[in-house]
C-alpha cells in the first residue's frame, strides 16, 4: 500500500473502498469476540466457508469475523446483512440451514431467533431485540459491522475522518477546547474531565510528552475495554493520535494487560496497517505531524491500572503507585508530562470531533455527557456489554436491557464500579446512572462493571469476597491498604463464621474509614467501598450474622441442612449422592442427615427432586433432632 499524503487521497481511497462494497450484497457477520470464540465461533466461521463452497456461493458474499456484539449470553452470534437478521447460539450444525434457507431463499430460521421471554414472540431483526433496542451504541455500535483486522472496513464507515479534520482544520488548542466543551469525562473510573487533563499536559513544561491508553482492565467480570480494543482498534488509535496532536506528543503507548492476547494481536495489526497508509508515523497525511504508537504488555497486576503504577511498569519498574500530588500530567512517564486515558475515553474522541461537542453534549446528564458501556453480569438474564446514555436508570439497564433476574428470584443489590464499587439496594433502582449520582449513593462509576445480585446473595459474604480480591491485589506499599485490608478480611471471616461480636463490626467500620482516608492510591482508597456500602444499606445482615444467622443461607458455618420428614419421599437420591455418607434412611422411609458428618456441600439440596423439595437450609434456628428410625414416608398430595 502506498502512503496517503493528503486528505483528498484519503477520501479517494475511501470512495474506492465503498464503491467496491455492494451494500445489497449479503454479508454474514460472525461474532469473533472473546466470548463467542470461547463458545465456538472460530469453528463456526470455518464451517460457513466450507458450506458456502458446497453451495457454490464462495466469493458471492463475505464471511466477516467481527468484534464482540455484546450479547455474550446468547453467543455465538451471527448477523446477516443487509437485513440485520440476528441468529443466536448458533452451532456448526445450524450453518447448513442458514445458508439453504436464509441466504438462498430469504427465509428465516425460526429456532435461532431471539424469543421474548414475556410474550414468547420471536424477533428476527437485531435492532428490535430489547437487549439492543434499549441501548444507544455510539461507541460500541460499529463492533458488529467491521472486521477488526481490516482497516478498509473502518475506513468504509468514515474512519480517520476525525483525524484528517483535526490535522488540517484544528489547532491543538481547538481540539482541547472541543473536548472540554463536550465535557468528556474519563471512562476509566475517576471521571476526571479529559479536556482539562489534556490541557494541563499540553501546558506542562518538559519534552517529550507522552500519551498513553490504559487497557489494563482488571475488574473481575469487566470486558468493555477488551471488546473495544479487540473489536474496533482503529477507533482507539484514531482517538489516541488526535490526543497526541492536541497535547503536543509524538509518542503514544497502549498498555494492554497480558491476559488479552487477541487485543494485542488486533492492535498490533491495526498499528501496522495505519502505518502502511500513512495514518501513523512520520508526516501523517502530509500534515507535518509525526506520531508513533507502541504496545506495552502488562504483567498481570490489578494495581497497574492505577496511572502512576502503570507508568512505572512501562519504565520497566515494579508496578507500584506513588503519591500523585505532582500530577502525572506534569511529571509522569520518565518524569515527563504524560497523559493517560482509558480505552473508552479515547474511543469517544473521534465521535466528538466528527459530530461536534454541541451534538455530544446533548446526550447524557448535566454532569456526565455521552454514553457509557457497562459490563452487565451476575444474576441477570442477558449478561453482556451494554451501552446507554448517561442518566439511564439502573432499572432500565437491569430489567429492560438485561431482561431481569433469572428463575423469578428477587433483586437484592447491584454493585457498580468493579470490585471496589459499592452495593446499592433496591431503592436505588430508579436512580440515574452517572458519575456524580453513583458517588452520592456511596458507590462509583468505576470503569463500568455492573454485578447484579439476587436474594440468594449474602452481602457479608460478598463484601468478604471483594475484600479478599483487593487484599490479594494490593501492592503492599502503604500500611493502611496492606495491613488494613488484611485485618478487614480477618474480621469479615470471623463474622461469616459466626465468631464475631458487635464490637468487631464497629472495629471493621472504623478500620474501613481509615483505609479509605489514609491509603496512598485509589485502590486502597476505594477498597473499603464494598464493606462500607453493605454496612450502610445491609447492616441488618451483619447484625444477623452476629446473632448466628445468615439470612441468605450462604455462610457455611451458620447454616444446617435438614430433611423435612413431612416432605421426604424416601427416594434415596440424597443418600446415594452424599459424599460423606452423612444421610441415613431406607427406601420409602424418612431420611435423616447426621449433622456431625455433614460438610454442607449442598449436594442433597441440589439432587432432591423439585416436586419433593424436602431438603432445606436452616440458619439461626436449631435443627430439629430426628433419629433415623425407619419412619415410613407420608406420600405428598399432588
Amino acid at each position, binding site marked *: 500500500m502506498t502512503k496517503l499524503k493528503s486528505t483528498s487521497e484519503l477520501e479517494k481511497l475511501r470512495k474506492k473502498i465503498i464503491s467496491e462494497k455492494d451494500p445489497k450484497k449479503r454479508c454474514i457477520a460472525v461474532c469473533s469476540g472473546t466470548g463467542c470464540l470461547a463458545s465456538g465461533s472460530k469453528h463456526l466461521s470455518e464451517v460457513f466457508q466450507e458450506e458456502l463452497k458446497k453451495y457454490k456461493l464462495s466469493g458471492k458474499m463475505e464471511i466477516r469475523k467481527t468484534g464482540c456484539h455484546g450479547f455474550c449470553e446468547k453467543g455465538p452470534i451471527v448477523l446477516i446483512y443487509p437485513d440485520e437478521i440476528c441468529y443466536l447460539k448458533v452451532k456448526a450444525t445450524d450453518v447448513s440451514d442458514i445458508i439453504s434457507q436464509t441466504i438462498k431463499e430469504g427465509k428465516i430460521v425460526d429456532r435461532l431467533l431471539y424469543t421474548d421471554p414475556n410474550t414468547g414472540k420471536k424477533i428476527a431483526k437485531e435492532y428490535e431485540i430489547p437487549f439492543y433496542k434499549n441501548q444507544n451504541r455510539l461507541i460500541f455500535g460499529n463492533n458488529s459491522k467491521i472486521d477488526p483486522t481490516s482497516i478498509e472496513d473502518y475506513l468504509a464507515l468514515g474512519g480517520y475522518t476525525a483525524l484528517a479534520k483535526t490535522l488540517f482544520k484544528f489547532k491543538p488548542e481547538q481540539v482541547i477546547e472541543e473536548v472540554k466543551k463536550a465535557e468528556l469525562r474519563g471512562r476509566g473510573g475517576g471521571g476526571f474531565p479529559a479536556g482539562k487533563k489534556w490541557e494541563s499536559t499540553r501546558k506542562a513544561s518538559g519534552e517529550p510528552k507522552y500519551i498513553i491508553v490504559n487497557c489494563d482492565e482488571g475488574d473481575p467480570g469487566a470486558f468493555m475495554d477488551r471488546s473495544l480494543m479487540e473489536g474496533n482498534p482503529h477507533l482507539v488509535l484514531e482517538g489516541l493520535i488526535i490526543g497526541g496532536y492536541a497535547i503536543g506528543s509524538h509518542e503514544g503507548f497502549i498498555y494492554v494487560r497480558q491476559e488479552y492476547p487477541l487485543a494485542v494481536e488486533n492492535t498490533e495489526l491495526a498499528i501496522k496497517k495505519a502505518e502502511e497508509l500513512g495514518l501513523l508515523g512520520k508526516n501523517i497525511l502530509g500534515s507535518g505531524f509525526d506520531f508513533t504508537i507502541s504496545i506495552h504488555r502488562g504483567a498481570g*497486576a490489578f494495581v497497574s491500572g492505577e496511572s502512576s503504577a502503570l507508568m512505572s511498569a512501562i519504565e520497566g519498574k*515494579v508496578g507500584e503507585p*506513588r*503519591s500523585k*500530588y*505532582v500530577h502525572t500530567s506534569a511529571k509522569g512517564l520518565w518524569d515527563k508530562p504524560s497523559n493517560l486515558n482509558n480505552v473508552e475515553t479515547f474511543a469517544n474522541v473521534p465521535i466528538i470531533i466528527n459530530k461536534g461537542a454541541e451534538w455530544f453534549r446533548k446526550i447524557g446528564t448535566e454532569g456526565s455527557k455521552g454514553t457509557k458501556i457497562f459490563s452487565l453480569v451476575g444474576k441477570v438474564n442477558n449478561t453482556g456489554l451494554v451501552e446507554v446514555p448517561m442518566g439511564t436508570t439502573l432499572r432500565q439497564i437491569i430489567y429492560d436491557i438485561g431482561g431481569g433476574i433469572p428463575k423469578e428470584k428477587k433483586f437484592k443489590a447491584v454493585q457498580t464500579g468493579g470490585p471496589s464499587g459499592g452495593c446499592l439496594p433496591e431503592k436505588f433502582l430508579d436512580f440515574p446512572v452517572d458519575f456524580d449520582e453513583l458517588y452520592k449513593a456511596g458507590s462509583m462509576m468505576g470503569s463500568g462493571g455492573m454485578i447484579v445480585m439476587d436474594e440468594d446473595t449474602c452481602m457479608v459474604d460478598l463484601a468478604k469476597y471483594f475484600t479478599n480480591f483487593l*487484599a*490479594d*491485589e*494490593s*501492592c*503492599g*506499599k*502503604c*500500611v*493502611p491498604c*496492606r*495491613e*488494613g*485490608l*488484611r*485485618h478487614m478480611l*480477618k474480621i469479615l471471616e470471623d463474622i461469616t463464621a459466626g465468631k464475631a461480636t458487635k464490637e468487631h463490626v464497629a*472495629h471493621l467500620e*472504623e*478500620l474501613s*474509614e*481509615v483505609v479509605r*482516608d*489514609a*491509603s*496512598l492510591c485509589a485502590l486502597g482508597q476505594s477498597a473499603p467501598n464494598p464493606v462500607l456500602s453493605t454496612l450502610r444499606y445491609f447492616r441488618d445482615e451483619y447484625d444477623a450474622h452476629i446473632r448466628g444467622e445468615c439470612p441468605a443461607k450462604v455462610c457455611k458455618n451458620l447454616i444446617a441442612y435438614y430433611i423435612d420428614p413431612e416432605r421426604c419421599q424416601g427416594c434415596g437420591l440424597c443418600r446415594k449422592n452424599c459424599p460423606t455418607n452423612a444421610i441415613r434412611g431406607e427406601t420409602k422411609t424418612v431420611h435423616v442427615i447426621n449433622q456431625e458428618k455433614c460438610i454442607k456441600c449442598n449436594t442433597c439440596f441440589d439432587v432432591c427432586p423439585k416436586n419433593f423439595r424436602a431438603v432445606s437450609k436452616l440458619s439461626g434456628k436449631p435443627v430439629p433432632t430426628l433419629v433415623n428410625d425407619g419412619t415410613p414416608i407420608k406420600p405428598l398430595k399432588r
Partner: protein
Amino acid sequence: MKKVTLQIDEKKIDAEEGQTVFQAAKKAGIIIPNLCYHDNLEPFGACRLCMVEIEKHNRKRLVASCCYPVEEGLVVVTRNEKIDKIRRVLSELLLAISPSGTHAVLAKEYGVTESRFELEQNPDSPCNLCGLCVRYCKEIKKSNAVAFNGRGVNKKVALVPGVSDQCLSCRQCFTVCDAGKIVYLVDNLL
C-alpha cells in the same frame, strides 16, 4: 530557590519551593509522626502516619505531608480529630505486626495501649515494610542488595542473592531499621 509562605498549625512558616510540607514543618520545629521518612532519601509515602489536613481553595483534604510539596498560602493542620483517628488506627495496625518499636511510643501518645487487631505471628522477625533499608541501599549505597519481594500482604524485605554478599561487611542500613528485620536477615546470611 523561590520562597513560599505557608501556615502550619496557625504558625506562619517560610519554606523553599520544592520542599515538602513535612520538611517545612520539621524545620520550624513542628514534629509530625512518621516511620518511613529520612532526610537523605526520596519521599516514599508508605507509613501514612504523617497524614495532615490541608486547605486549598476552601477545600480540605487529607494528604501525606512527606510527599506533598509546599505551596504559597497553603493552610496545614497537623492534628485534629480525623488525623488522630488515622494515627490511632495505623498504630494499632503496626502494633499487630510488632508490639514494640517507635510506633509503640506513638501509639501511647495517641491513647492506644493495646491493638484491637490480631497479633501477626512472624515466623522470623517483624517488619513494617517502611522501606528505609531498601531505599538506603538503592539511593545512597547504590548497591540494590536489599529489595522488596512479593506483593500485597505477602510483601517482604529480602536480600538479593548474588548481590548481598557485601551486606555482611557493609551493614550501613542497620542504623535506619527500627524493627531489626534487616539485622536479622544479614545475620542469617551466614
